[in-house]
């Protein structure tokens, strides 16, 4: 007993000393060889992305060139363009892709038109206090529940909803757009609007006041200052916002299910059905390549226009 007791007492400071020296050595090593610290901080997040996400992403697009055996349901790993020719050859699949891309474009333009004057007011006219309040008010819906906001429009546009009640009370007839493309257009524009406002605001706020003065000193009227100075300088913000609204609409399949009527399937609906019910992952991957290619083109174009600074 006394032996263990004294041993215990003696060992304690010794282990502390050892841990201190180890600690010292470790930090000295980290200081002398920053590559160690770099490895420690960079490898875990990078490994996560490369393994779980990027690897899967690459794999996915290899899968697009495979097929599914009709009898067994197993994936047949022979290279084939069958999925792509099926998509291009089918009027239905072409129509769905065009509908999705067309809606993404319509929503982007709508949001740009709604957001620009608002962002301009926020950045250039409102005082500092009002500006902060407005920015918070824009960010609130951005982070709040997506489903709640889609559902709200279902209530508003329903046959017995707020819209028809308002129309009837001013003597207008019912407008039944509850489950239609109009509904999808309104809902998408509503949901992604804050994503357009924020980058636009950032871009507009950055423009130095002196440029406005210089333009006016040189005799330009307001609209000319706007067209020649403000609009070009805020273009990166506009492009950054449009990346969000475009990409988010392109990848959505929930809103078409909830507010789109019959025949309003998006690319996402086809993809989801093929991953789940039809169990044809190769075809789903091939179809998902459409939004990916569209986004790749869009991002390349956006980079040219200098949007990366404003994002």
């Amino acid at each position: 007993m006394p032996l263990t007791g004294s041993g215990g007492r003696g060992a304690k400071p010794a282990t502390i000393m050892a841990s201190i020296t180890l600690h010292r050595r470790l930090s000295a090593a980290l200081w002398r060889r920053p590559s160690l610290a770099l490895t420690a901080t960079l490898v875990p997040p990078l490994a996560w992305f490369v393994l779980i996400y990027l690897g899967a992403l690459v794999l996915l697009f290899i899968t697009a060139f495979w097929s599914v055996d009709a009898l067994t349901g197993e994936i047949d790993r022979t290279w084939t363009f069958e999925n792509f020719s099926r998509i291009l050859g089918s009027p239905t699949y072409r129509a769905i892709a065009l509908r999705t891309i067309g809606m993404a474009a319509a929503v982007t333009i709508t949001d740009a038109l709604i957001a620009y004057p608002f962002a301009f007011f926020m950045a250039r006219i409102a005082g500092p206090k009002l500006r902060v309040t407005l920015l918070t008010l824009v960010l609130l819906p951005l982070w709040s529940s997506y489903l709640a906001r889609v559902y709200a429009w279902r209530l508003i546009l329903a046959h017995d909803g707020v819209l028809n009640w308002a129309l009837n009370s001013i003597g207008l007839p019912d407008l039944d757009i509850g489950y239609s493309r109009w509904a999808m257009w309104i809902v998408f524009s509503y949901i992604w609007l804050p994503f357009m406002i924020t980058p636009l605001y950032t871009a507009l706020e950055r423009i130095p006041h002196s440029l406005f003065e210089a333009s006016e000193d040189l005799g330009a009227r307001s609209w000319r200052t706007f067209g020649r100075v403000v609009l070009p300088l805020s273009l990166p913000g506009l492009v950054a916002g449009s990346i969000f609204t475009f990409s988010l609409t392109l990848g959505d399949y929930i809103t078409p299910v909830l507010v789109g009527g019959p025949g309003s399937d998006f690319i996402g609906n086809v993809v989801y059905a093929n991953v789940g019910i039809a169990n044809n992952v190769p075809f789903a991957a091939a179809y998902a390549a459409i939004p990916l290619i569209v986004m790749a083109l869009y991002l390349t174009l956006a980079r040219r226009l200098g949007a990366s600074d404003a994002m």
Partner: protein
Amino acid sequence: MPSRFARILLALWSGIVLAFLFGPIAVIALYAFNASNIQTWPIPGFSLRWFVSAWNNREIRAALGLSLQAGVIATAIAVVLGTAAAFAVHRFRFVGREAVSFVVALPIALPGIITGMALNSFFATAGTGLSFGTIVVGHATFCIVVVYNSVLARLRRLPSSLGEASQDLGADAWRTFRLVTLPLISTSLISGAILAFALSFDEVIVTTFTAGAQNTLPLWIFGAIRLGQRLPEVNVVVLIVTAITFVPVLLAYRLSQRSG
């Protein structure tokens, strides 16, 4: 400066945009107190009965529990990995450094179905099956960028002299991190974490690809709306979810404002 007339027009427009942003949210709030089980406007009367009914619904409570758990774990992972990545990018110069910001943003920059499918096919290839764990992994993947952006923005604004001073005074790297850097970035870390949680708590698209039989709260809401079932309870749940996300976002916003 725009003319007085133009400024009034812009102010008016801004008011309309705000009404557009918040009108639907007000509609949700009113419907939650609807006394009737039929969804018509104007609502016939006010009642709290659907709050009681929603609270007593086991499916809703289970889904809420699952969402909270998934959100907390995913946020924890995102905080560790996002902060680590932000440090690496801030402190060191290495090949592909510019690409890091791009790569971590990919899961939210790419259309949701693509991220969902990529994760789905990863789990299929790895043979893990879909479970609570795969929901968490999926959520963490798209939450990392939120923490990363928040922490990196703060790190860029910190003078490097503070860390140097600490090391000159004899603190080692870990101590400097714990006593100097961490307190300085703590608010950005917390606001990043809150926003990551809000993102996870609300996500539908990626979750539909990574959940097995489990229902997160958004999945329950989606299912109920689609099938047109239990709509009075949906009204209540949707209002509560909106209210819950409003609070942390306001808080995160204040935190990020305070340390400018």
